[in-house]
């Protein structure tokens, strides 16, 4: 296959459709096989990008602006690779999880396939209307996965999520309409020079609408309200997919538009505002995480906080010196990658613990250290990355971000990052302390399959190893 890009979209569509044909609860093996191929394809694409630079692909052979182009640069390559790397252990985990706990599987496999197709299509898209369509596919699949949990809690959370995501894509689409009305094209490649040359007021409003729409979907404070119930209430494999990957998709779009097409429109004020919202997210999310009584809700609030870190990037890359900006960008992307791996591992580990104990309550975790030592170790490793302790990927990410902040004399953000790390350590330690207590009367540990423990451990160890192999990731990111 000369060009892996379109196959990264077609493959999941095909296996998801076949999985649907086979009926409810079926298709786990198809998913594992399909994802293995996708991982190879993503690696192939990453290698091509690393050696030959960014690639474009004309769908339909027409070329922009009449047709739609796909475009893969280093950033897209990192995210595509990350998505398949995180998803493969998760589908292995999910097979074992649903074998024990078949409730809530229903159409998990086809929905996961369509979810991955939507993510891959989104990362590759270079056309703003096409991006809108992929956003809708992503949003509806994610809602379907959350709702499959059943019960008033998950269904209410799914519906709230659906309405928020529809409002977000509505704002995005109005932005698309304004941009199309102004320039007559939807191709990012065609639009970039046009926006650079002349941007009337409508384009500023469009950029603002698209930004707000994507912030809603990324759940940046104060738009985070929908995330904890949706991510905390879904079955563990779904929570892992959503927290690790789905919120990153809309963040990726913000970053990409900010850096390229809409670069002439960005202002320091907007960047500082995003930074302040990120700071608020870190503080609020961490404090709420510490106050939770349910393990999965704690992890979901931790996602709210960790998403905040991603937004500290914007004040560091806007109107600062190039060296500091480059370091900050690397740090931001490393944070994204490290969080995806660690959060997938953490939700997976939490799912294993909850399956074994039979309830989701932080105060009843006593005995986990002796009965599920590997899973607890996984949780701790993931916590290490979230808190940004060496030698984890999270440490490298925060180090690069701090370098960027000090390089541009914005010491305030350094304080935010360090205190955020301490707060993360606090909520992780709260769980660990409970887990090391002795078993409470009435707590029974049912045996869990090893696949559950080891697939989560694999994810956590990757988040740690990322710290040692960060140059490869950063090298791919740099290829233009």
């Amino acid at each position, binding site marked *: 296959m000369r*060009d892996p890009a*379109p*196959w990264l979209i*077609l493959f999941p*569509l*095909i296996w998801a*459709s076949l999985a*649907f*044909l086979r*009926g*409810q609860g079926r298709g786990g093996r198809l998913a594992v096989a399909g994802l293995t191929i996708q991982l190879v394809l993503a690696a192939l694409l990453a290698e091509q990008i690393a050696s030959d630079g960014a690639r474009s*692909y*004309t*769908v*339909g*052979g*027409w070329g922009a*602006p*009449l*047709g*739609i182009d796909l475009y893969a640069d280093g950033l897209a390559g990192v995210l595509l690779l990350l998505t398949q790397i995180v998803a493969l252990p998760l589908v292995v985990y999910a097979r074992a999880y649903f074998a024990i706990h078949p409730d809530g599987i*229903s*159409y998990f496999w*086809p*929905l996961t396939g*369509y979810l991955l*197709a*939507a993510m891959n*299509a989104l990362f590759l898209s270079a056309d703003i*209307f*096409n991006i809108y*369509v*992929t956003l*809708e*596919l992503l949003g*509806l*699949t994610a*809602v*379907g996965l959350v*709702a*499959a949990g*059943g019960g008033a809690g998950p*269904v209410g959370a799914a519906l709230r999520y659906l309405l928020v995501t529809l409002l977000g894509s509505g704002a995005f689409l109005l932005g698309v309409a*304004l941009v199309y*009305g*102004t*320039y*007559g*094209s939807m191709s990012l490649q*065609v639009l970039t020079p*046009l926006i650079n040359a*002349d941007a*009337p*007021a*409508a384009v*500023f*409003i469009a950029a603002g609408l698209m930004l707000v729409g994507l912030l809603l979907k990324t759940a940046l404070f104060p738009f985070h309200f929908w995330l904890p119930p949706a991510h905390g209430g879904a079955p563990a494999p779904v929570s892992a997919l959503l927290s690790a990957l789905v919120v990153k998709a809309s963040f990726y779009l913000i970053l990409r538009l900010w850096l390229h097409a809409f670069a002439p429109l960005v202002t320091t004020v907007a960047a500082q505002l995003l930074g302040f919202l990120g700071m608020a997210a870190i503080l609020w999310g961490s404090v709420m995480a510490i106050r939770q009584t349910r393990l999965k809700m704690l992890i979901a609030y931790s996602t709210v906080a960790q998403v905040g870190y991603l937004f500290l990037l914007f004040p560091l890359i806007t109107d600062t010196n190039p060296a500091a900006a480059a370091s900050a960008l690397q740090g931001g992307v490393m944070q994204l990658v490290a969080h995806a791996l660690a959060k997938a591992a953490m939700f997976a580990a939490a799912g294993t613990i909850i399956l074994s104990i039979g309830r989701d309550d932080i105060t009843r975790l006593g005995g986990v250290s002796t009965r599920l030592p590997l899973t607890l170790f996984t949780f701790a490793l993931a916590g290490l990355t979230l808190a940004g302790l060496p030698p984890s990927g999270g440490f490298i990410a925060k180090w690069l971000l701090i370098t960027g902040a000090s390089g541009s004399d914005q010491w305030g953000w350094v304080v935010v990052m360090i205190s955020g790390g301490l707060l993360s350590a606090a909520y992780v330690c709260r769980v660990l302390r409970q887990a090391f207590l002795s078993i409470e009367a009435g707590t029974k540990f049912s045996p869990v399959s090893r696949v559950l423990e080891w697939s989560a451990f694999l994810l956590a160890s990757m988040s740690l190893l990322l710290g040692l192999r960060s140059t490869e990731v950063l090298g791919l990111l740099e290829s233009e």
Partner: protein
Amino acid sequence: MKGVLDLLVIVLCLVLGAALWWAMLDLPSSRIHLAEQVAAKLDASGVTHPVTAVLLNFRGYDTLIEVMVLFVALIGMLTQAEKGSQWLSAGYRPPPLPAPPFHLEVLQWLARVLVPLMILTAGYLLWAGAHRAGGAFQAAALLAGAGVLLNLAGLLPAWTTFRAGMRAGSITGLLFFVLAAAATAAAPHGHLLQYPAGWAGMLILLIETGLTLSLGLILAGFFLLLSAEASDGSDTEE
């Protein structure tokens, strides 16, 4: 507190509205005119109706993803259907239809006349889409409308399950589209959804036919799955 926040939303909407109006009235004329490019390439698209050319050829990739959105919504509904205790539970059967009152008899008579007409019109719209207004979506909507009418007239019970046959029917047309896309991408020197020269018109008609049948089933499914419980005795309209 709530009142203040509502007021804030309204004020923000008004400000945004004023800004939008001002910006739209101030818009310079656009540089790129895609309509001209569509007209220039129309001959190569395989159809003569520009909107169909854009939907199924120039931007066919959007359509590929969009039909998946419809399908995913259906799966989302099915995940709920299977959970509902009263709604679509395995043992649930719609109650036997009572002898129809007069207005329902009229509706049934109407349905028997209209449904064949709607199916014929759907076929016409599908075929006409190549040259003028019409196409797969409108045709599918008509098919679904026929399903709704039959249900309202009491001639077609609400769907309580989605059996293998329906699953196959709802995905086949979409899967054909995906596989056609895969074939074009796999062809030597081919690109995703780049129809081979001379085949475009034929392929578009085939794809649209498949889409019409599957989308018709999906859209009808939206209504028939949702109306399941309404038929369980407690009549709804006042």
